[in-house]
């Protein structure tokens, strides 16, 4: 039992790191697959993108059904995500989020495969992905009314610069057209996917937390729907039956694509679970380690397909500095978080049920409970700095009518049963 209790922060990093390790292997297999597609089809990135969703849907459905099998009073999938019970229908309140996340996934994936055809070395493509953290910070500032702290800005800048340095190709070149696709198509798509997946994860389904397996399943179904629309539109444009060719290519390369779909399934499940714990930008920062994992993948890949190797030590030095910066940025993100329990006493005559709803509205409150005992309410909060905790939480608590007194208890260390 004891080994199951690990520190929550470690769980978050374990999930995000596993997700990025799998993602980098998946990126390596993508390169091989896209080459194979290129040997047969002209529109390789588009067809491959479609296959990834079509085969991905079948594989995800299969996994979700297997994980729905009950075992010792819980489902098999609950070992991956404790909130998972069984595959279920999408709920009305989820549809809007799924539409946006699915659209984001469809465009980010297709864009990404276009980039892969231009730059075949995954270790030079993946880092560009990491700059998405800047978009996420910006969106969090606007959408969650959550101004980033200096640490968040600094860490993001470090991660981004590190990613750019680490992304120099072995020839020492940066492809501008690929960069444009990443910044204008891939990253905005990924932002949509990340933000709405997080919103889905935080959504309550019949009072219970939402689970990452159902989110992934429905996300891939919605993405496939968008992909079919994209294929139909482009089919009209190119005057080709792209949908038919796409289905045919999915059958021809079913086994290869199913390997990628399996890797992607697990990478996403861990990523979505991590998103439920940490902010989207922080999860993204940890995911930046993908670029470090991508190096061994590139080496292994070079045994199968020709990838140019570094020619100068200077290039190696620059790339190494890049990786060190990425890791440093992530560490500074990790160590700057303050969590606390706040014990609250309500004033006489105040309805506690209403009071906890008021407290729940405060940004940074992770949970709020009405309790019996010395106190009336216990809230658990997370904030980047103590100053922000004062600005965002303490000031708001003081303005709530019905609170007689409250006590802030900073958490020094925490374990959680997983």
């Amino acid at each position, binding site marked *: 039992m*004891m080994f199951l209790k690990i520190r929550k922060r470690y769980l978050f990093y374990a999930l995000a790191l596993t997700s990025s390790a799998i993602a980098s292997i998946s990126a390596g297999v993508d390169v091989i697959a896209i080459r194979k597609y290129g040997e047969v089809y002209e529109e390789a990135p588009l067809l491959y993108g479609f296959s990834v969703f079509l085969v991905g849907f079948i594989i995800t459905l299969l996994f979700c059904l297997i994980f729905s099998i009950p075992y010792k009073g819980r489902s098999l999938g609950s070992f991956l995500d404790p909130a998972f019970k069984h595959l279920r229908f999408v709920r009305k309140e989820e549809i809007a989020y799924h539409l946006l996340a699915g659209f984001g996934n469809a465009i980010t994936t297709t864009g990404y495969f276009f980039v892969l055809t231009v730059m075949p070395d995954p270790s030079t493509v993946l880092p560009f992905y990491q700059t998405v953290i800047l978009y996420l910070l910006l969106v969090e500032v606007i959408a969650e009314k959550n101004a980033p702290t200096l640490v968040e800005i600094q860490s993001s800048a470090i991660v981004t610069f590190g990613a750019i340095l680490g992304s120099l190709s072995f020839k020492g070149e940066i492809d501008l057209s690929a960069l444009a696709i990443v910044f204008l198509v891939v990253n905005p798509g990924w932002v949509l996917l990340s933000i709405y997946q997080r919103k889905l994860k935080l959504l309550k389904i019949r009072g219970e937390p939402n689970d990452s397996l159902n989110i992934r399943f429905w996300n891939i179904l919605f993405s496939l729907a968008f992909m079919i629309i994209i294929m139909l539109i482009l089919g009209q444009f190119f005057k080709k039956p792209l949908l038919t060719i796409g289905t045919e290519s999915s059958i021809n390369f079913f086994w290869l694509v199913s390997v990628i779909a399996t890797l992607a399934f697990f990478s996403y499940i861990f990523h979505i679970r991590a998103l*439920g714990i940490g902010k989207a930008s922080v999860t993204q920062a940890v995911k930046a380690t993908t670029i470090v994992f991508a190096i061994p993948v590139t080496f292994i890949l070079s045994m199968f397909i020709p990838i140019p190797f570094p020619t100068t030590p200077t290039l190696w030095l620059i790339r190494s500095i890049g990786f060190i910066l990425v890791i440093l940025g992530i560490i500074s993100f990790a160590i700057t978080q303050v969590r606390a329990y706040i014990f609250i006493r309500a004033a006489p005559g105040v309805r506690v049920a209403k009071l*906890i709803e008021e407290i729940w509205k405060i940004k940074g409150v992770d949970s*709020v*409970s009405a*309790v*019996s005992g*010395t106190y009336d309410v216990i809230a658990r909060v997370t904030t980047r700095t103590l100053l922000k905790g004062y600005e965002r939480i303490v000031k708001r608590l003081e303005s709530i009518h019905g609170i007689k007194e409250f*006590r802030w208890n900073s958490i*020094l260390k925490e374990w959680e049963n997983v």
Partner: protein
Amino acid sequence: MIKAYILVKTRVGKLEKVLQKARELKNVESIAVVTGDCDLIVKVKVRDTEQLLQLTDELQTIDGIRQTTTHVIEKEITL
């Protein structure tokens, strides 16, 4: 299903040992070391009040625990 917060006060110098023992207990969802009025906040999830009593009994028998206060959760809103 009953959830509760158990606020634990420990004797000086015993915190680490109490922590080790508390982590071995069943039905404990999370343990936090905090600053303030108490030293530990243990969140538990039990089947019924009988099990809650059993758990608080087990906690109280840990050497180094000075006082426990149980706050049963009546309603919870969480992420």
